[in-house]
């Protein structure tokens, strides 16, 4: 069976997480890194925005600073996501262009890779479906959001699967006019977004979700996940990218 490097659940800062994803892409571009799946958490909790979004438009920076929540611009498009340390697991998959799982058609490739999350949720007992462009829904409500970029001759897709959801905190972090944070609006979000714990009505742990994601990706993508580590070169590249790009205002406030 085809092998894929698997970097098991690690906890990093927002800057490190985004830097590692890009470092792996560069490694693959240079023929030095293998196709890779990684799982990760964010500490401190952080909000990531899509590459075309305005930081000050989307994020209440003062609130984040006060609460020690990091904020970062991704290299991928899509919307703002709050990555709560205890409330979600993020994955990324990085493939060389032309890989059988990196379909040329972008929506098709979302569908193929999101199959791993559908399967993971199925393992947990949740029936979920890919919903184009880039969501996975359970019972019609969004439970996972995903985003993709194609550069450095690679396809990178990363995404979040919600374990828990604090709508009030989310509204405090994301810029929603205060008068709109009514009970009605909170109720509206609960109609559109759900989480693993919401659906299963039990206290699923981060580790259980991570294990399901590992198994789900292996099965859906038909790969053998081989536990591995970042190479020294990747670690070095990630350190530079974190320091010189992802932690800078120049990058994070470029729009």
């Amino acid at each position, binding site marked *: 069976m085809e092998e894929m490097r698997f970097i098991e659940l690690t906890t990093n800062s927002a800057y490190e997480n985004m830097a590692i994803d890009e470092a792996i892409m560069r490694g693959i571009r240079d023929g030095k890194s293998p196709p890779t799946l990684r799982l990760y958490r964010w500490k401190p909790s952080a909000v990531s925005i*899509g*590459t*075309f*979004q*305005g930081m000050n*438009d989307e994020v209440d920076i003062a609130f984040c600073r006060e609460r020690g929540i990091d904020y970062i611009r991704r*290299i*991928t*498009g*899509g*919307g*703002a996501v709050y990555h709560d340390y205890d409330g979600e697991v993020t994955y990324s998959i990085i493939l060389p262009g032309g890989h059988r799982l990196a379909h040329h058609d*972008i*929506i098709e490739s979302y569908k193929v890779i999101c199959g791993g999350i559908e399967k993971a949720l199925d393992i947990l007992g949740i029936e979920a479906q890919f919903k184009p*462009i*880039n969501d996975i829904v359970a019972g019609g409500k969004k439970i996972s959001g995903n*985003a*993709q*970029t*194609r*550069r450095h001759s690679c396809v990178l897709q990363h995404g979040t699967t919600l374990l828990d959801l604090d709508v009030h905190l989310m509204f405090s972090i994301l810029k929603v006019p205060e008068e709109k944070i009514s009970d009605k609006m909170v109720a509206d979000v609960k109609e559109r977004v759900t989480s693993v714990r919401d659906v299963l009505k039990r206290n699923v742990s981060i580790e259980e979700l991570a294990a399901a994601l590992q198994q789900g990706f292996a099965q859906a993508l038909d790969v053998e996940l081989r536990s591995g580590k970042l190479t020294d070169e990747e670690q070095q590249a990630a350190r530079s990218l974190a320091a010189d790009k992802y932690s800078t205002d120049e990058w994070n406030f470029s*729009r």
Partner: protein
Amino acid sequence: MKKADYKVSGGKMIRVKLDVRKRRIETIRILGDFFLHPEETINEIERALLKAPIDRDSLVVRIEAAIRKNNAVLIGAQPDDIAIAILMADGSV
């Protein structure tokens, strides 16, 4: 600075911020949660729109040309949606 948000039906959100002078675009920023590959094409699109007349067809022609030139793919919105957002920001629709 004029501003408008336009939610594409079945697609993504486009936010346009612009300054207009003598019915032409003086500065423009296109923001939102859409996808555009390669991402750098957004700079080309914004550049192509400078000095463009606020006219739906002319805007679409310029946006399409920038996308074609970069062999880019826009997902979650069409060039016409960006044009509509520009007209909305200007207050002409």
